[in-house]
């Protein structure tokens, strides 16, 4: 019997349930025949606590500690399922006895991550055994480039790097442009704070990216491939190098690939980690040895890209999807997802969430399912506040968006974006003005400085936000904040500047009351802006244990043992140590 001991289930007494099950088994003298094991999160916290009985795969939901008796007496002893605890299918209202038929397994489908955690990334043989390079073989020997591009268009795959441009259409454009030497570029310059799916794919399944690049080359008539990867990803680089060497040894890169007469080879280029180099024109300039600055589009890279030649740039996750599409067909891929966003998307769950990690979900899933089911809910049982998607270019979404199906278009409509798939979850302790300031700090740092709206505008935005968090701003500053945001959005040269005000605009749209509190009352509702809060001792609760005084780094707390303590506000640096150390709730943030 597997009992979930994830944070969510534990909060609803799964530890008691675990003890009771053991106790009941002992009473029936079954402790040697049935084993009770605590497991990690099942990702089904909404219906917790969960008990799974193997080998018959019975899945019990919402089990209370008192149910242990019945489970042991009925299931363990007599082999009969306890029907009332079985999961009920929400659609046909039937009890589901075998967990394999349950919908929650379908919440995650691994397509791009299919081999991550399954095969040895440093062995091409394991990749080959997992259908590796079969898509390439099929495309090279059975399809014309036009047919292969059509398949890509039919699949409905859209760029996973953030833009969401249809991949097949991008290929078609590149294939029609004439050029002496065309290039395929893999964008592995993953820069969004908190997003790490590209790194994981390159570390776990580098061959899938290589295979897709060769297919891409065949489709558009390119014979050279370049992978632009951040130098900060040493392990991914090492595994890519091994993969390239192995693919060359097998003749899957090089001349006359699989007897088709088609030549293709891949080289690695290193990026120095500038965020703007994820933008394709800046990326290309960086590879050429120029400054990593974007240029105006058109001309698009498909017309004039690397060294002025037609170039197709796709992101790592986009490439990782491609071999599967040819193996299983465009129709299969298009059957997953929503009308305009097909397939799955990998998200990096981070922030105040229990199950931090990488998940891959079909498009159209709701934020609620991602955060509260797969993600296991908010840490320490706190209240959900907002989720930031799309990195520094995205926006914050709130509980009113929890049931919106996630896809490219819905997220933009809600005031955020898909981006590369970072998802940072925030709880009630996060001040939304500070969150906006945090992202602005990042864009100010990463602005390349070429155009003034971005270079100067973002700096001014940051200063306005700083003024607000210090409680020194007035109403006019709020108007300026919004106006300046719109100007930067409308007049910047590239995506970085055009989207950098998004965190400000979306927090202003969804959390205006917090901005008002900072400006009108000089108060930070979340209690996180240091200039606006004060630590005070609540006399009724203080027992005089001296814990706060002993832990204060600046010795600003006075008070004898068993006497009321006091904080000297002029010395306090607001480090939060006293608040954390007090066991009697006697330190308050006001």
């Amino acid at each position, binding site marked *: 019997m597997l009992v979930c001991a994830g944070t969510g289930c534990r909060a609803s007494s799964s530890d008691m349930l675990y003890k009771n099950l053991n106790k009941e088994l002992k009473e029936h003298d079954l402790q040697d025949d049935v084993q009770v094991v605590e497991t990690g999160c099942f990702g089904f916290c909404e219906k917790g606590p969960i008990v799974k009985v193997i080998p018959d795969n019975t899945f019990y939901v919402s089990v209370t500690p008192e149910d242990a008796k019945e489970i042991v007496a009925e299931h363990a002893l007599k082999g009969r399922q306890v029907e009332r605890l079985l999961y009920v299918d929400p659609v046909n209202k039937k009890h589901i006895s075998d967990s394999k038929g349950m919908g929650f397994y379908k919440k995650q489908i691994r397509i791009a991550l299919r081999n991550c955690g399954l095969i*040895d990334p440093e062995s091409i043989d394991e990749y080959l055994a997992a259908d590796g390079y079969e898509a390439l073989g099929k495309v090279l020997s059975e399809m014309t480039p036009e047919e292969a591009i059509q398949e890509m268009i039919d699949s409905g795959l859209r760029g996973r790097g953030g833009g969401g441009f249809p991949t097949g259409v991008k290929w078609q454009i590149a294939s029609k442009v004439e050029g002496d030497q065309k290039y395929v570029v893999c964008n592995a310059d993953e820069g969004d704070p908190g997003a790490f799916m590209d790194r994981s794919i390159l570390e776990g399944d580098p061959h899938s990216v290589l295979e897709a690049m060769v297919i891409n080359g065949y489709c558009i008539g390119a014979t050279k491939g370049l992978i632009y990867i951040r130098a900060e990803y040493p392990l991914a680089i090492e595994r890519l190098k091994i993969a390239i060497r192995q693919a060359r040894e097998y003749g899957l890169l090089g001349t006359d690939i*699989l007897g088709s007469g088609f030549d293709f080879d891949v080289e690695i280029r290193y990026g120095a980690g500038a965020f703007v180099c994820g933008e394709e024109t800046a990326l290309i300039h960086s590879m050429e040895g120029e400054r990593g600055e974007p240029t105006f589009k058109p001309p698009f890279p498909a017309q004039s890209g690397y060294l002025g030649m037609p170039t197709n740039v796709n992101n790592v996750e986009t490439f990782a999807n491609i071999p599967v599409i040819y193996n*299983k067909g465009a129709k299969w891929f298009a059957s997953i997802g929503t009308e305009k966003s097909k397939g799955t998307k990998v998200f990096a769950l981070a922030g105040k969430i229990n199950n931090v990690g990488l998940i891959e979900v079909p498009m159209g899933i709701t934020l609620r399912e991602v955060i509260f089911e797969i993600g296991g809910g908010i840490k320490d049982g706190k209240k959900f506040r907002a989720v930031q998607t799309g990195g520094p270019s995205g926006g914050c979404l709130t509980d009113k968006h929890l049931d919106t199906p996630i896809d490219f278009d819905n997220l933009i409509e809600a005031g955020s974006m898909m981006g590369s798939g970072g998802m940072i979850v925030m709880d009630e302790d996060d001040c939304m003005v500070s969150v906006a300031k945090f992202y602005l700090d990042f864009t100010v740092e990463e602005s390349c400085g070429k155009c003034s709206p971005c270079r100067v505008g973002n700096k001014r935005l940051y200063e306005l936000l700083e003024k607000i968090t210090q409680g020194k701003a007035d109403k006019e500053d709020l108007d300026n904040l919004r106006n300046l945001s719109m100007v930067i959005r409308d007049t910047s040269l590239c995506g970085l500047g055009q989207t950098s005000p998004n965190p400000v605009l979306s927090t202003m749209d969804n959390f205006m009351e917090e901005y008002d509190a900072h400006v009108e009352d000089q108060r930070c509702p979340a209690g996180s802006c240091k200039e606006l809060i004060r630590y005070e001792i609540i006399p009724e609760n203080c027992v005089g244990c001296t814990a706060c005084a002993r832990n204060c780094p600046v010795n600003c707390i006075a008070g004898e043992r068993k006497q009321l303590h006091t904080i000297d506000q002029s010395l306090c640096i607001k480090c939060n140590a006293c608040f954390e150390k007090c066991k009697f709730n006697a330190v308050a943030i006001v």
Partner: protein
Amino acid sequence: MTKIKSLADLKKKKEDLQSKIALREKSDTPEGRVLVKVAMATCGIASGSKEVMEYMVDELDKRNIDAIVTQTGCMGYCYAEPTIEVKLPDQEPVVYGYVDTRKADEIIEKYIRNQELVDGIIPVNYQTIEKDKEE
């Protein structure tokens, strides 16, 4: 290494490799061969999976357990790193999270030797493409 020269070549190679892997997994010896995969992406290594992998290789050898220890990429359970997957002959693979050398020792003694499950299993909560095919 010989080059693969055509699609037919590739398919043959794949079948060879698959049967080799199948043979490895369904070994007939009484104890069979145990397969241990250690998640060795940046997240895993940062949490100590290199140590766990070395420990597994050394200890399984020392304790005379016929096992193959390989590395793999990120399984996605970054919150529970280091994670390892253990597959006993003719059984479904089981993933364990928060594995340090002490936990690894427990897994070897209890699970690998006696097929007795150990606390800390991470349940599978996703669908793979293959499973989809069966439907």
